[in-house]
């Protein structure tokens, strides 16, 4: 089975790296927004897309198209992400284009409420996790955290 693990650069990526033991015994590809992050996952298939964390609309559109193409190339059975925008877009494209199984792990930084991306992800994710027990609700599971 092929898993695509997605996270934007920074904290989302560091959290994703802490989930790696769960992927054992599967083929894993990684997707992020910085080329030099391949450092962290040397033995695995690695892809990067443009960083559209800023509010630049053009970059966001470009990233959306890039991710659709990546999904078609990688063809994952399962997509898992710790956020943010590239993760959400991967889940959406994976669901629509390939019917992939999808997991959203909301960032541990979201202490007070689920992120906006997390709320949107609920529609496209088969499993949604929060990392804080007080944020658990129907359709949002709490099963510990990346700590």
């Amino acid at each position: 089975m092929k898993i695509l693990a997605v996270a934007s650069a920074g904290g989302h990526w560091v959290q994703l790296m802490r989930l790696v033991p769960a992927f054992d015994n599967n083929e894993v590809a990684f997707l992020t927004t910085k080329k030099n992050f391949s450092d962290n996952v040397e033995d695995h298939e690695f892809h990067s897309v443009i960083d559209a964390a800023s509010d630049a609309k053009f970059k966001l559109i470009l990233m959306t198209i890039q991710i659709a193409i990546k999904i078609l190339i990688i063809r994952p059975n399962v997509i898992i992400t710790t956020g943010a925008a590239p993760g959400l877009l991967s889940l959406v494209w994976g669901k629509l284009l390939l019917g992939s199984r999808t997991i959203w792990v909301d960032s541990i930084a979201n202490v007070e409420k689920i992120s906006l991306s997390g709320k949107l992800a609920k529609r496209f994710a088969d499993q949604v996790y929060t990392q804080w027990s007080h944020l658990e609700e129907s359709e949002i599971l709490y099963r510990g955290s990346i700590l």
Partner: protein
Amino acid sequence: MIFVTIGTQLPFDRLIKAVDQLASEMKETEFIAQTIKGHYQPKYMKTVYDLSPTKFTELSKKAQIIISHAGMGTILSALMVEKPILVMPRLLKHKEIRSDHQIATANTLEDLRYINVAYSTAELKSKVRDMINNPAPLHKIGNFASDELIKSITEFLDKSKK
């Protein structure tokens, strides 16, 4: 050495300026700052820009303490190399970020004793000196997520194979 880092996304001049001033007062201590090109240039700290994860870990390991914004990437990296970390949350009112979520993150992790927090530049300066003079242990974390979360994801993946 004190390692200062603000992440790769947005500038954080309020933090860099405050620590630069501190560096000017603490000449006996070396400061290395990871910052963003085109913004405030430190005068008393060595400056680095786009760090690879390997280089980032290298500097974190060498550091006596780490000073940063309240971003999870830096916080987790510091905890993984068992270095004391002092964070100052980015604030919306200074246009340092797009929402005030770093305050809640910092607050919660401070209560759980994973990190030290400075809520102002004045507090930042006094806390750095405190941390150097009285190194207090913080919570340690392992290399990976909690067993419960790993297990739950593994189960989901196993079910997906069928």
